[in-house]
């Protein structure tokens, strides 16, 4: 496979994952803003911070409110991470690697791009927002389904998976990090209304509020939630799940190509770091410090994959 093709697949799936994550963040923010009256502005702000877009947003707007934030995150062409921007990136990459994709995957991405070019042409009024967010989720499922159901399990598939899980790992770490103060054990005294809001926000941002109920036989408290999002291998957006996927895809690649890679070592290291910890020892190390290191190591892993597999000339 061409190095460029591997890169195209990787970025296509990173972008698709990013579109879904952004939609999920907006959804969580929108819901909190609707149902709670406490300080919606800081909720909207934390969403922008999570998307690493504070400077770009503040260059354009003075107020963090639902209209500005959703418009900026959904359709602003000046925001390279807006849903519309990343869907275009995904589609451009899909065109670039068209020969590596099944017709089903290609047409689902192309259709997604056509659909959102249309839906996001004008600002989305608040009344239509749930529908638009649902459409983003639906299209993401469509692409994922086509990918799972039709793609050969070979190196092409592995590069798609690497893009998905590196992006997801980065996103989940950021979501937790922005709210880390709400997750510190000190904040977990019983019944604090404010903390319940924060926790719900976090769980919703990773579509895990129902999963938590099903999977965790315990209270809504900080250690339980942090443990679930960081260490629970059953949750498809947890850090532990992401590292295990990355390790297995990099192992397939190493087997396939007959040589181990430096990126596999990095991924194994990340995975071991989670496996050998319980949530208590992470709190002891310092949650924020742990996450900061995790985010920067995730990005180093991404660079190493690009190098190992010659994405660029």
């Amino acid at each position: 496979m061409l190095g460029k093709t591997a890169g195209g697949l990787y970025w296509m799936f990173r972008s698709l994952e990013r579109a879904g994550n952004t939609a999920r963040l907006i959804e969580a923010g929108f819901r909190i803003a609707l149902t709670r009256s406490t300080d919606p502005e800081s909720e909207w702000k934390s969403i922008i911070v999570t998307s690493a877009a504070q400077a770009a947003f503040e260059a354009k707007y003075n107020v963090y409110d639902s209209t500005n934030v959703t418009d900026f995150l959904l359709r602003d062409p000046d925001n390279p991470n807006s849903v519309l921007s990343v869907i275009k990136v995904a589609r451009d990459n899909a065109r670039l690697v068209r020969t590596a994709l099944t017709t089903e995957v290609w047409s689902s991405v192309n259709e997604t791009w056509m659909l959102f070019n249309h839906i996001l042409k004008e600002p989305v009024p608040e009344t239509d927002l749930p529908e638009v967010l649902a459409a983003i989720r639906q299209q993401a499922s469509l692409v994922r389904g086509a990918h799972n159901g039709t793609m050969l399990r070979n190196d092409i598939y592995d590069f798609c998976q690497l893009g998905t899980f590196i992006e997801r790992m980065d996103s989940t770490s950021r979501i937790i990090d922005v709210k880390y103060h709400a997750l510190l054990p000190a904040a977990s005294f019983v019944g604090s209304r404010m903390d319940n809001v924060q926790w719900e926000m976090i769980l919703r941002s990773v579509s895990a509020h129902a999963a938590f109920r099903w999977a965790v036989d315990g209270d809504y408290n900080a250690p339980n939630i942090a443990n679930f999002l960081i260490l629970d291998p059953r949750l498809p957006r947890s850090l532990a799940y992401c590292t295990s996927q990355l390790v297995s895809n990099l192992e397939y690649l190493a087997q396939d190509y007959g040589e181990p890679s430096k990126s596999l070592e990095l991924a194994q290291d990340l995975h071991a770091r989670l496996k050998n910890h319980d949530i208590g020892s992470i709190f002891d190390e310092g949650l924020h410090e742990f996450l900061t290191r995790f985010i920067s190591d995730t990005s180093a892993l991404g660079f190493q994959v690009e190098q190992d597999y010659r994405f660029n000339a």
Partner: protein
Amino acid sequence: MKKEDKHFSEMMRPDGVRDPYQNYDAWFSKQDINRLSKKAQEAEAFFRRTGITFNVYGQADAEERLIPFDLVPRILSNTEWSKLSRGIEQRVRAINAFLHDIYNRQEILRAGVVPVDLIANNEAFLPQMMDFTPAGGVYTHIVGTDIVRTGEDEFYVLEDNARTPSGVSYMLENRETMLQMFPELFSKIRVQRVSDYPKNLRRSLEASAPPGVQGRPCVVVLTPGIHNSAYYEHSFLADQMGVELVEGHDLRVVDGNIAMRTTRGYKVIDVIYRRVDDEFLDPLTFNPQSMLGVPGIMDVYRAGNITITNAPGTGVADDKAIYSYVPEIVEFYTGEKAILKNVQTHRCSQPDTLKFVLENLKDLVVKEVHGSGGYGMLVGPAASKKEIADFAEKLKAKPANYIAQPTLSLSTVPILTDAGLAPRHVDLRPFALVSPNAIDIVPGGLTRVALTEGSLVVNSSQGGGTKDTWVLEG
């Protein structure tokens, strides 16, 4: 359908339906027009979803457009096609012999059959190709000869397109679409297959690999990238052949070979089906600004370590001034009369011809010698007085840049309109594959149709559409 007056209709004769269309007409007369219109809309949605689009140059929003598809097929009998394909094969053979001669002994120039200055002053002539013979002596591995029809037995070649002809993906997709929309038609009417084209293309390209390649030759398609107007076709062909689609920056010279950067290091390639123009192929040899080519590829080529298809410099055989000599070229190299006719062509470089052309602009079609895509041409009968006057000035300023041809009464094939069938002018671009051992011509080709009533310009860049082209089994 109303009988057409002065143009040859491929479907209707004054006394009824022409033979090749009999079965189709029988089927069509039982169809509900509304259902067919709905099918046409479905086809359009399918093309959009699949991304069968082309990018339009010179438009700020870089819009992707569809080439309109008309669902009434253009039908040729096996007899008509046999004659056409023999004529194309003869012409393609002669053009390859001509290219070899021009870049080696130049006997045709010495014999005075083609004037020396047509070559000497030809921008497409590449001195870098002198005294070099590509693998198997093939220059034009893929040719798309443009043919028009004016009567029952009157076929004319309009252009030879010996550089990088496009459109074959539309031929394949059009057939695929028809098969999906009207399977019952294909079980009633025996139509020759076109679907083997990608397989044959790959085989033909492999057969043109440099001698001495070990194992199966590695073939790639070279594209200028996703913003090129024909990008869809490039990726389609690579996909259908099962080969890599590369850009210039994926390639480089490694130990005297051309190699592509893969996830596991550089891999040597043997044959490049390039969809990049000569000028951009090698910044060390041609346009130094080019980002689309591979620095040093011409040296590797001349050392015989890579096959470039079509060969650089083939354009010298298909500009519109050389075109007027093709019948003589055919006779010179094959000893036979040309089976396919040329359109009468006035070379404006000659003073008395220029005078004639200027006096008759309203009846003529004038084209730039190096133009393509229907740009920069004048269709006299359709032009306003002012357009003709403006064009006359351009012509006087640079006469050698133009040729003129009579306005042909192009044949018509019906298209589906809201009011039922209506005749529109068509042309035909069959595709020939040339390898050292064989010339293979896919039955039919791409039919382009001028969708505007009365229009003679079929180019997709000028609002033309396409049709599925059927060659009936014998």
